[in-house]
């Protein structure tokens, strides 16, 4: 089970959280993009064998949304890939 650090409640058990999907870039304005860019935003997510950035909701806690980087091989919570330069 993950130990997820909530910015308000500190480290809490994964069972208090709801998984909210991988982080995507902000929704582009389809009118200003070509079809390929638009459908890519709609259908693609990063699928790394390694760290992925994702959202979690502290539903059974304070209710905030937060993001973590999690290694898809081990499920360890890791630092953002560019942490510390």
């Amino acid at each position, binding site marked *: *089970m993950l130990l997820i650090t909530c910015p308000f409640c500190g480290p809490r058990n994964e*069972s208090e959280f709801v998984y909210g999907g991988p982080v995507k870039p902000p929704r582009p304005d389809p009118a200003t993009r070509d079809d390929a860019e638009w459908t890519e935003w709609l*259908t693609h*997510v990063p699928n790394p*064998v390694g760290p992925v950035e994702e959202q979690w909701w502290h539903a059974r806690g304070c209710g905030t949304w937060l993001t973590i980087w999690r290694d*898809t*091989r081990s*499920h360890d919570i890791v630092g953002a890939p560019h942490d510390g330069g």
Partner: protein
Amino acid sequence: MPQRYSLVSLLRHGLNRHTTWAPAWRSPQLKDRYDVIVIGAGGHGLATAYYLAKEHGVTNIAVLERGWLGGGNIARNTITIRSNYMRDASIPFYVKSVALYEAMTRELDFNTMHSKRGMIDVIQTWGMMRDRRRRQHIMDIHGATYEQLSVAELRHRVPALTGGGPEARLPVLGAFVHTDAAVNRHDAVAWAYARAIDAMGGAIHQQTPVTQLLRGRDGRIEGVETPRGTVRAPKVVIAVSGHTTSLTETLGLKLPLRSMNLTAFVSEPVRPLIDVIINCPDAGVYLSQTDKGELVIGGPPDPGQSYRRDIKQGVFEETVASMLSLFPAFKRLKLLRQWGGHLDIAPDASPIQDETEVPGLFVTAGWWGGYKAIPAGGLTLAHLVATGRPHPLMEPFSLRRFRHLDYQMETGTTTAR
């Protein structure tokens, strides 16, 4: 021709203390060129090679496998074979696949221990009840069986299901039975295909991981790189369940897939207790009993993308709690083993089978519940690879659907949440 398996051959080789059986498939030398390379000796890769040889006469084929034959998800799944899907596009494909499985023992002269025992969906919310009624109408159109059962009929058919009474948080409201559903022996499926491929001249190379796809100057696929050397072919098929994007990204090719870890666990063997497959989509658990007596139990996947191959404690606890809410007596069962397997899933949870934008490079992926799909998936992909045209049963599941936003929304696993 392979040796036929029969009572006579069993007696004859038995008299020789079983030392005279020919191997079911050989391990030939790896050549540097084939007509078709299939990456992955799981169910889909093997079935594709089989139908390429059998239906289209393409026998200069190599199936390249990272590990050992049939050691991937074909060995890790819970072997539920069924066609109770949701969409007009999906159901005919799965009806075909169920029928091909029923004929497999005879067709391949290999006992797949097919057991058509039916599946019962236990319904505990009105939303799920509406969904299942809708499925029933569509399944009627396409010839898959689905009938409603009352709570009394359900409890009569499955006496071990004593939970979910009127006082429960989610009382059982009714059930649907899908009599076409079956289980069989997964190893036998892999071995039967391997034997048939070998007999027709195809080659299966184990311990041969593909590390890089190779693209020619003209943009077409040219072959693959492996630690055993470069292997070339004008057509390459990716059938690597869960690892599809890792391979396509070696050419910078993006696909709309996420990789997930689905898990299962088994109990100690007990006396015959449940003779159907039980699926509880509201509770989030499904189970069946093997011929040896073990209960095979599955639940939802890990939350988020995952390349683990074990069950997470949280997923395990949730699945056990769901099971005990309906089968409270099972709390005395000892659990023996748990495991997981890597699958990839498209945004609409339907499969992807197509030639990619790299000419000559084909993918079969997004097989979320893809064990049941193995025979028909091989049939349709072989058709596409050999003729260049999609098989009618697979046409809705091309990559084009994502460009045209023509999604085929399905539900994922049997637990379907």
